[in-house]
């Protein structure tokens, strides 16, 4: 039984190494290694090394490979312990983007247990592939027990459960611009205003709590306008809203009406119009506040009436 337990450590460690390599090689995983190693080439080299070691554990029984796995896991234990001890809050990046949280003591314990498993397996004569080929029910049960123990000792799993139970409020969520564009471009609000935009690049992008605002220059009836999109950081394309204001640089305005919101999308329980029902963009009215940005000039938007989808 003891011999069998030692044998199953070989495919188990190989699987862990291959999973770690895959996690690091994912595009978004490359930034999650500790800051001192925050170089894409270094991360990829580390991932390649892990993958190579995992494959060698499966295909050869050379003692040098087993020794290399012991050294590798012992080094990993030292690095994670160092991160925890420094209290810097850095992620260990052991499994790329899946290890995005600060290094924890549980991670040190896991790395230590893996080091112990590598030491146990150092004297096994079969290759990982041979062990898997001759595996019976007992081997499968031991392998499953190994995996369960590994998951129980994984801070990534604990963090995922925590995220599931208590999701991070949208105000605190770090959302890159790519995610905002991914929500904006397929939205009905974008399709509705895309034809009136004169540039594909926004002139202003800022975030306030749960919304990111993007301002694009546009033109309606030959007049310059600013099209504003409000993209929720935790929502999909359906929640994107848009509005149009006269460009503040427009000096030849001949009417005195206020800014007009021309897209009032899907929001809460209010009834929303589908694309077929959406009326064509109305002519934006003049925005007085664009010229006089003080309370007296801010009354334009108060005239917006009869529009669904208020925040």
């Amino acid at each position, binding site marked *: 039984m003891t011999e069998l337990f030692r044998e199953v450590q070989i495919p188990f460690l190989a699987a862990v190494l291959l999973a770690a390599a895959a996690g690091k090689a994912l595009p978004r995983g490359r930034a999650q290694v500790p800051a001192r190693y925050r170089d894409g080439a270094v991360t990829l080299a580390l991932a390649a090394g892990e993958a190579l070691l995992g494959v060698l554990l499966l295909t050869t029984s050379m003692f040098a490979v087993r020794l290399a796995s012991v050294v590798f896991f012992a080094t990993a234990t030292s690095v994670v312990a160092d991160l925890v001890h420094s*209290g*810097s*809050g850095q992620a260990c990046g052991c499994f790329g983007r899946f290890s995005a949280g600060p290094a924890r003591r549980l991670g040190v314990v896991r790395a230590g247990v893996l080091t112990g498993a590598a030491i146990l397996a150092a004297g096994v004569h079969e290759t990982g592939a041979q062990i898997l080929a001759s595996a019976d029910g007992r081997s499968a049960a031991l392998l499953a027990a190994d995996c369960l123990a590994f998951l129980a000792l994984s801070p990534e799993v604990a963090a995922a459960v925590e995220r599931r139970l*208590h999701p*991070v*409020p949208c*105000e*605190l*969520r*770090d*959302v*890159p*611009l790519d995610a*905002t564009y991914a929500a904006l471009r397929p939205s009905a609000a974008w399709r509705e205003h895309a034809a009136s935009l004169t540039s594909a690049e*926004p002139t*202003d*992008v*800022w*975030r*306030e*709590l749960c919304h*990111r*605002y*993007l*301002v694009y220059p546009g033109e309606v009836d030959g007049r310059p306008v*600013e099209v*504003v*999109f*409000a993209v929720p950081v935790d929502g999909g394309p359906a929640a994107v*809203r*848009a*509005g*149009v*204001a006269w460009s*503040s640089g427009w000096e030849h305005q001949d009417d005195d009406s206020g*800014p007009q*919101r021309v897209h*009032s999308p899907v929001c809460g329980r209010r009834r929303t119009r589908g694309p077929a029902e959406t009326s064509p963009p109305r002519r934006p009215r003049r*925005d007085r*506040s*664009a010229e006089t*940005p*003080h*309370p007296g000039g*801010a*009354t334009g*938007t*108060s005239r*917006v009436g009869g*529009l669904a989808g*208020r*925040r």
Partner: protein
Amino acid sequence: MLPSRDLMHRRRRLRAVVSGDPPRYPEEEDLWPRRALEGVIVDASPHVLTLALADGSEVRLPMSATVSIWYDGRAELAALRPGRHAVVRPAASGGLAAEQIWVDIARVTGVITKRTGDVFEVDAGPHRGRLTVTVPAQAMRRVQVRHPRLEPGSLLDVIGVRRGHEILGLRPAHTSPQPAPHAIEPASRREAESVRILRGTATWFDHPDGVRGAAYPALDPYGDGGGCGTGPVTRLPYLSLGSEVRVRNECTGQEAPVPVIECGCLAARFCDRCVRCGTSPRGRVVELSRSAFVDLGGDLDAGCFNVTVRVDRP
């Protein structure tokens, strides 16, 4: 980038276009509790102080009977020499009578990058650049009480006086030691209100004369949010330049809306607590410009006050 005031109005207007709510301009409603004044001393007598303000105008301030003057500690009228910079808090009873005057007060907050004897070069963040501060021998022990490791890489926050182009750091700017990172308790996720209501410490920072505003640690690092990209140590709701926070001094009860004019890139790295009136529940959640800090009842020489910051109506 537009000037911060124009930027703030522009963003409020554009945001209102989407939301349908009329934009608010609370700073125009003169809700500030008191109006601090900053300027260079032109003349001073026992009864009147004349200041040249940043806009070129001059203002004559009567001295209240109980005026208190700070210049490297409590000072006499002789400290009000022409050419020195002064921050004046008017009396609470109204009018312009000076109640408290800080002369040539300066603050250096940042990470020590170089030390040569008692001269420290400090990286004050991407917006404020590098500063040089001299800690005199007689002040060194006092500073080391709060900053025992005065070596490159360590945080430094000292209040002192400006003499010409030199800044003398005379005392540590905070009154509780920097706790270990594991002592920082993150905000409870179960409390719905706690995400947008921040209870912690407000400090002040040197900013060109008369500007009222806040440096907020968690500005969006993407787009034109104005963030430093360094990320706050403790998690705070994301805002941008031109957003507005409502700041309440828990020690005096004074409250005012303050526009965000800068990223407080280094504020969140300080985990110290303010102990002006009880111990603040968490570290620095906002830095205020000198005028905003004084307007809200803060004493510049004390360096901090306990604060509640609401970010729910940016």
